[in-house]
């Protein structure tokens, strides 16, 4: 029996997208857009932070996109999409009222419920902040159940900061520490310039009681995991979100096979120690 985890209703056919309506569009960056989607019959969309959907552009194609919205607002399905190919290009051209195909949610997300009681270090790079946002919402909604909360965000330049308004809002809170660092900036940028690992070196958390959620380009994740380990965080408490080619999200198409896992079903989020061997195995 196929179960649509989002609705806990049996689905006849896991390969058929449902048609959602675009009800809101926000241009985040010149090449990045956030779409608010609503199910045709107003069904709620339940998901876990870190899960993804397969999004279909009519006649163009289907790609995996992580959910960037709030689990506590199931009436609104939110995706933040960066233009990298023809399908994402098609999404960037959608207007309010247009339709988009949705299958999901799929995969294993951030273990927000299993890390209660810990300090939480959230390390994002570039668009990697989008899959982390539902985890940030969830942690902040249950703020009392966590120790120190640290958000460290690295981006290319000050003009490439995703969710800038929210970064300001989070920075203004007294119950979390947010630091932003960019690869390069023009004079006048009051923030930090460098790599996100430099923020890890100085962030305030208790390494022995810390869970870290890391998402960004693989290079950034590799060095971030190393910096966390150097601070004394056990890599079994470090979670990374992997990106691999995906065509079906069901475990049938083989593209995302990663050792003894399929990233679509066993990931995209993995405890680092379970994949460290493969993560450091070179493909070239």
């Amino acid at each position, binding site marked *: *029996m*196929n*179960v649509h985890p989002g609705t806990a209703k049996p689905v*006849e*056919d*896991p*390969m*058929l*997208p*449902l*048609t959602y*309506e675009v009800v809101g569009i926000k241009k985040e960056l010149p090449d990045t857009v956030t779409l608010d989607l609503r199910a*045709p019959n107003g069904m709620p969309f339940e998901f876990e932070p870190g899960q993804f959907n397969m999004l*279909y552009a*009519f*006649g*163009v*194609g*289907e790609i995996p996109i992580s959910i960037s919205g709030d689990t506590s607002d199931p009436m609104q399905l939110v995706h933040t999409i*960066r233009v*990298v*190919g023809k399908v994402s290009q098609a999404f960037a051209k959608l207007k309010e009222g*247009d*339709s988009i*195909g949705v299958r999901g949610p799929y995969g294993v997300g951030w273990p927000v419920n299993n890390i209660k009681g810990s300090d939480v270090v959230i390390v994002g790079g570039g668009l990697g902040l989008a899959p982390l946002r539902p985890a940030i919402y969830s942690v902040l909604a249950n703020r009392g159940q966590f120790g120190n909360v640290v958000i460290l965000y690295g981006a290319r330049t000050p003009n490439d900061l995703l969710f800038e308004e929210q970064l300001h809002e989070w920075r203004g809170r007294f119950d979390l520490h947010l630091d932003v660092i960019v690869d390069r900036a023009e004079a006048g940028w009051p923030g930090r310039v460098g790599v996100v690992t430099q923020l890890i070196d100085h962030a305030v958390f208790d390494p022995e009681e810390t869970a870290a959620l890391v998402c960004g380009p693989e290079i950034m994740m590799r060095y971030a995991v190393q910096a966390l380990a150097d601070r004394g965080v056990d890599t079994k408490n470090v979670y990374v979100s992997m*990106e*691999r*080619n995906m*065509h*079906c999200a*069901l*475990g*049938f*198409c*083989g*593209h995302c*096979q990663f*050792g*003894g*896992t*399929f990233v679509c*079903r066993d990931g995209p989020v993995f405890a680092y120690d379970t994949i460290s*061997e*493969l993560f450091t*195995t*070179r*493909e*070239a």
Partner: protein
Amino acid sequence: MSELSDLSRRNDVHVMKPEGTEALIRALIEDGYEVIGPKVIAQAMLYEPYEAGETPPAGWTDEQDGGRYRLIARDDGKLFDYVVGPQGFKRYLFPPREKLWSAKRTADGFAVGRDGAPAKAYAFFGARACEVAAIGIQDRVFDNGEFSDPTYNARRAKAFIVSVDCSRSASTCFCASMGTGPAPEAGYDIRLSEIFEDGHHMLLVRSGSEAGAAILEKLDLKKAKKADLEKADANSRRAAEMQTRVMPDDAREVLARNMKHSHWVEVGKRCLGCGSCTMVCPTCFCAAMEDVTGLDPDSAERWRQWDTCFSVNHSFIHGGAIRQEAWSRYRQWITHKLSFWHEQFGQSGCVGCGRCITWCPVAIDIVEETRTIRDSEKTEALHG
């Protein structure tokens, strides 16, 4: 039909004359099956549809080795003295190219649906033990506990399997070391074993399911003698003993702990990256989705077609492909097949049919490569 005879047909072993295959194929066709069986096409033994009245080709054997396949005609009339050709039955349950659904624009967006054509009921005639095992492996892939593939499983549920024991092996066969052959233990509806000795030519017939027993009811069968059974068993034993290639039983562990071995680069120098091994493999299941629109801009379709992990695009993520090098793609394939498959599906992904060895244009050998890495562990040839 009395209950007694029902039971006897289900449990007993029977014999029939070689010409009995004609009635068997006819009975299957009459029951609504599209029968797929061996035919000599383009100097190879392929599995193709049978018409009523057709029978399997008699008097053929084959010679196979790394990068080499020859079908050889003989005048002995034996029905199943060749082993496996380039195509298994995979292409019928999991077609090389298949439309998954179509979409139409509507007033308020678009609607997606399957075309709803009923699944074909196939009867696979002459499936070897390795092929029966391969179907079992793909069954686990396409129904993984969380999701099941609707079209594969619709066809699979209706499929009927007439298996044949192998009484000889090609040099590329290694099913005995994979535990899948030369004779199937289960997974068939009807099992045939050919006996050809001292002028006697007959087929031993067993049923493996209710459906198989029901078909046997329609055939002219005699009860088998103990000596016939012994002959069939001896044939299987001989086929197993003929096998010179032996997959190490610790292949899973050997490959898992040698991901960084220098030998991968050496195999990569020979591998052409053509993907032939994956196209002939009866368990490889990689498929790419393709979305198309026709001349009519208001309709679109999704197609699924076989893909291969030997193509650069297979590992494409934004920005480029992860596995740019031939050696890393070969490593991906063999480690998945022989090692990581166990973690995903609780069994090896290899059935020992030897097709990847025969049909590799440069004769890369899955058994030999595994053995090379295994043997080299003594010298610990590792690179970073």
